[in-house]
C-alpha cells in the first residue's frame, strides 16, 4: 500500500510538472495563433492538448464521411418532413465521436496503481473496474456478471410466468442450484470482505486522482460538454462507492445469516432432528437467512445506505439524461423534457376543460333555474295582472264609496254645524235669557228690597202705631178697668194694634224668606257679586 501512495505522489508530481510545461506551451501556441503566424500548427500544439487536438482533427475527418452518411439517412427519414436548414444542423455525430475520442484520450499519465495485479498499472479509467470484476472478487462479479433477475427469468422463464415465454429446456434443476448455490456461496465467502475494503479504497484513490485530472483546465469548442462528461465520471464514482458500501453491508449480513443457518443446522443435528428432506433443508435455509436479513433491512443504517445508493444512482441517471438530451437536441427526436412539457400542458388543458365543463353544467343548471323562474314569473305576472285589475276595480269602488262617505260626512258635518249653530244660538239665547233673568232677578230683588224697606217701614210704622195703640189701649184699659178681663182680652184681640202686630210678624217672616230666596237665585245666575 505504501508503494501505491508513493506512486500516486510521483504521479501527482509528474502531472504538475506537465501542467506547468503545457501552460507555457499553450501560451506560446496562443501567441502564434494570435499573430496569425503561418506554419504547421501541429508542431506547436502543447503536449497534453496534442491528443485533444488530434482527436478534434480526427473527429473532423470522421465527421466528413460519417456525417455524409448520416445526412443521407436523415434525408431519407426526415427529408420530406423538415426544412433543409434544420437538416443541415444535424451534428449529433460530432458529439458522439468527440465523446469517444475524449474518453480514449483520458489516460492517466504513468498509469494508476493496480493493487490487484502489481506491475500492471491501469491507464484507462475503466480498466481497473474490469480487472476488479474479472479477478478475485466473486461477490462483485456476482452482481456484475450475474444478473439475478435475468437468471431467475432464465431458469423460470420456461414456466411462462414472467413474460409469457415458453420453456427453453435444459437441465433446470442443476441450473437452479448451481446458480443459486454459486451466488450464495460467493455471498458468504469471507474473502469478499477484503474485496470490498479494497474496492472502496481503490474507488477513493481513483476518485481523488480523477477529480484532479477532471479539474484541469478544459479547452476546446466542446468545453461545456466535456465538463458534463466529467461530471458523469464523478457521479459514476460516487455511485460505485455507494454501491460498494451497500454491497459490504449485504455481504456482512450474508455472512451473519450463513453463520446462523449453520448454527441452526448443527443445533438440529445435535437434537437428532436434522433436515432429512431437501425441502426441509431449504425451508430452514430460507427461514434463518431471512430472519437475519429482515432485521438488517429494518435498521436505520440499511435504510440510509439504501437511500444513499439510490440517490447516487439517480444523480448519475439525471446527468446522463441531461447529456443525452444535449446530444440529440438538434435532431427532430422529441426530448424527454419536451414530452414532459407537452404532457404538462395537456394535463392542464384537461383540467381547464373539466373546469369549463363543470362551469358549463353549473351555468346550464342556473339557466334551467332561470328559465323555470322566468316561467314562474310570467305566471305570477298574469296572476298579478288579474289581481291588479281586481284591485283597481276594488279601489275604484272604494273610491266611490269613500266619495259617498265623504259627501255623507260633509252633509253630516253641515248638519252638525247647523245643529251646532243652533245650539250656539240657543246657548246665546239661553245666556241672554239667563242674563235677562238675572237682570229681572236683580230688578225683582231691588223691588223686593224696596218692598222690604217699605215693609220695614210699614212694620216700623205699624209697630209705632201698635205702640201707640197699646198706649192708647192701656189708657183705655186703665180706663175700662172695670170691664171684665174676658171682654178686655177679646177687645185686645180685636183691636187694630193686635192686628198690626200680627201683620208685622207675618210680613217680616215673608221678607226674610224673600231675601233668602234672592240670595239663592243670585248664586244660580251669573255669579255677579250682587250681595
Amino acid at each position, binding site marked *: 500500500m505504501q508503494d501505491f501512495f508513493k506512486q500516486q505522489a510521483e504521479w501527482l508530481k509528474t502531472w504538475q510538472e506537465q501542467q506547468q510545461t503545457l501552460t507555457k506551451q499553450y501560451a506560446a501556441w496562443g501567441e502564434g495563433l494570435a499573430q496569425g503566424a503561418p506554419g504547421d500548427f501541429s508542431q506547436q500544439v502543447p503536449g497534453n492538448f496534442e491528443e485533444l487536438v488530434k482527436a478534434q482533427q480526427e473527429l473532423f475527418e470522421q465527421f466528413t464521411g460519417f456525417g455524409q452518411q448520416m445526412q443521407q439517412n436523415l434525408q431519407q427519414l426526415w427529408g420530406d418532413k423538415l426544412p433543409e436548414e434544420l437538416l443541415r444542423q444535424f451534428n449529433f455525430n460530432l458529439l458522439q465521436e468527440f465523446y469517444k475520442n475524449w474518453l480514449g484520450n483520458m489516460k492517466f499519465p504513468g498509469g494508476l496503481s493496480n493493487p490487484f495485479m502489481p506491475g500492471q498499472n491501469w491507464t484507462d479509467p475503466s480498466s481497473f473496474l474490469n480487472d476488479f470484476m474479472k479477478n478475485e472478487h466473486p461477490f462483485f462479479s456476482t452482481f456484475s456478471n450475474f444478473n439475478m433477475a435475468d437468471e431467475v427469468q432464465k431458469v423460470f422463464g420456461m414456466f411462462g*410466468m414472467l413474460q409469457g415465454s415458453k420453456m427453453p429446456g435444459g437441465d*433446470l434443476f442443476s441450473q437452479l442450484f448451481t446458480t443459486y448455490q454459486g451466488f450464495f456461496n460467493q455471498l458468504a465467502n469471507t474473502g469478499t470482505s477484503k474485496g470490498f475494503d479494497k474496492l472502496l479504497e481503490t474507488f477513493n484513490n481513483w476518485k481523488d486522482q480523477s477529480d484532479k485530472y477532471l479539474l484541469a483546465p478544459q479547452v476546446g469548442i466542446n468545453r461545456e460538454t466535456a465538463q458534463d462528461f466529467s461530471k458523469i465520471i464523478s457521479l459514476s464514482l460516487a455511485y460505485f462507492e455507494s454501491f460498494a458500501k451497500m454491497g459490504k453491508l449485504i455481504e456482512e449480513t450474508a455472512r451473519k445469516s450463513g453463520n446462523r443457518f449453520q448454527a441452526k443446522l448443527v443445533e438440529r443435528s445435535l437434537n437428532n432432528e436434522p433436515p432429512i428432506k431437501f425441502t426441509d433443508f*431449504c425451508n430452514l435455509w430460507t427461514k434463518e437467512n431471512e430472519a437475519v436479513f429482515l432485521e438488517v433491512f429494518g435498521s*436505520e443504517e440499511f435504510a440510509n445506505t439504501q437511500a444513499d445508493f439510490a440517490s447516487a444512482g439517480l444523480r448519475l441517471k439525471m446527468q446522463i439524461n441531461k447529456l443525452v438530451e444535449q446530444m440529440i437536441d438538434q435532431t427532430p427526436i422529441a426530448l424527454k423534457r419536451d414530452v414532459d412539457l407537452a404532457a404538462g400542458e395537456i394535463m392542464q388543458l384537461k383540467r381547464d376543460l373539466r373546469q369549463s365543463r363543470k362551469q358549463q353544467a353549473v351555468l346550464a343548471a342556473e339557466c334551467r333555474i332561470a328559465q323555470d323562474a322566468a316561467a314562474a314569473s310570467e305566471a305570477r305576472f298574469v296572476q298579478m295582472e288579474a289581481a291588479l285589475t281586481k284591485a283597481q276595480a276594488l279601489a275604484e269602488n272604494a273610491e266611490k264609496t269613500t266619495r259617498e262617505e265623504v259627501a255623507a260626512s260633509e252633509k253630516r258635518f253641515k248638519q252638525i254645524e247647523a245643529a251646532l249653530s243652533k245650539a250656539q244660538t240657543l246657548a246665546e239665547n239661553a245666556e241672554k235669557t239667563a242674563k235677562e233673568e238675572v237682570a229681572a232677578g236683580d230688578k225683582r230683588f231691588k223691588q223686593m228690597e224696596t218692598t222690604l224697606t217699605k215693609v220695614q217701614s210699614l212694620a216700623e210704622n205699624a209697630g209705632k202705631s201698635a205702640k201707640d195703640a197699646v198706649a192708647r189701649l192701656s189708657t183705655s184699659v186703665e180706663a175700662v178697668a172695670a170691664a171684665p178681663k174676658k171682654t178686655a182680652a177679646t177687645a185686645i184681640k180685636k183691636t187694630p194694634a193686635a192686628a198690626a202686630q200680627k201683620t208685622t210678624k207675618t210680613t217680616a217672616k215673608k221678607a226674610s224668606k224673600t231675601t233668602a230666596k234672592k240670595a239663592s237665585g243670585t248664586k244660580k245666575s251669573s255669579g255677579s257679586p250682587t250681595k
Partner: protein
Amino acid sequence: MNYTQQFQESMDEFKTFAENLKKGVENLASSGEVKLAQTEKELVYEDGKRKLYRYQARSKKICPVPMLIVYAMVNRYTMLDLQPDRSMIRNLLDQGQDVYLIDWGYADRMDRHLTMDDLINAFMDDCINHICEQHQIESVNLLGVCQGGTFSAIYSALHPEKVKNLITMVAPIDFATNDSLLYVWGKAMDVDLLIDAYGIVPGDLMNQSFQMLQPFTLTFQKYLNMVDTMADSETLAAFLRMESWIFDSPDQPGEVLRQNAKDLFQENKLVKGEFEIGGQRVDLQQISMPVLCIYADYDTLVPPVSSKKLLEYVGTKDKQELSYPVGHVGMFVSGKTQSTLAPRISEWLNQRI
C-alpha cells in the same frame, strides 16, 4: 436412520421432485394464456386510461345503494378477481351488491404531471357523480383497497355527502409506525430526486421493493415450493395467475407518488390534519358516515396499526373494525376470507342502507 436409508429417502425425494417437475413442465406447456379478472363487467365511464366498470349482477336481490371499489395504483385490481373460486368481487356480487370498480390503468409519460387532486377530486368524483346520476341517488357505498383505501378516506372527508358508507381494506392511514419495512425505507428515501430523475417511476422498481420485504421467500423458496405443486394443473394455474398479478406492476405517476411518499409516508400529514389536495385541507373528522375498517393481522406491507388508526380520527360514531389472521394479499385470496368476508361486508352494509 443410517446412511443407506438417508440416501434411499433422498433418492425417493429426488425422484418425486423430478416426476413433479416433468409433469409440471407438461402442464406449463399446455397451460396456455394466464387469464385473470374473468368476471363479466361493462365499461360505463372513462377518462383516457382511467375507466369505471360495472359488474354484471349475480343475484336477484340487488342492494339499492351501489358499491364503488377503489383499488391501489401500485398494482392491478385483478387481485380482487383472481380466479372464479377466489374472487372477492364475485363473492360481493353473490351477496347482492351492485359493484362498480375504478381501473386506474397503466400510467405513461403523459401522466407525468397527474396529481392526487386529479385522481380523487376529479376522476373519483366524476365516477361517483356518474353512478349517482344513473341510479338517481345522492350517495354510494365506497370500498377502498390499500392505497385506494387512503384515496377513499380522503374523498369521504372532502365529499361526505356523496358517501353513504365507507369501507377501508388494508389501507394505510397513519404512517407513524415503523412496523413495515416500506415505512422505514420510505422515510429515508430522497423522493424528490427519485421523481425528478424518473418522472414516471417504473413499476418494476416498486416491485423490487416489495420483493425485498421477504427476500428469500419471494425469490427462492416460493419457486422451489412451486415444483412440489406444479404437477397439479389447477394449483399450477393458480400459481401462475398470482405470479402474473405480482409482476403486473404499473408505472407510477411522479407527482402522485411524490405527494404520497412525502406528505403521507414521511410527514404523516393525513392524521395530523395537514394534508391538502387541490388547495383543500383534508380533515378526517369530516368523515361522518358509518365506517368499517378491515385489516390483516399479519400484513407486512400495511401494518394493522396503520389501518385501524383511521377509526380514531373519523368524525362518525358508527365505526367498526374487522380483522382476519392473514397477510396483505391473503385478505383477498385466502381460504379464510373467501367464505366470510363478503357476507360480513354485505351484512354490515345492509344494516345501514
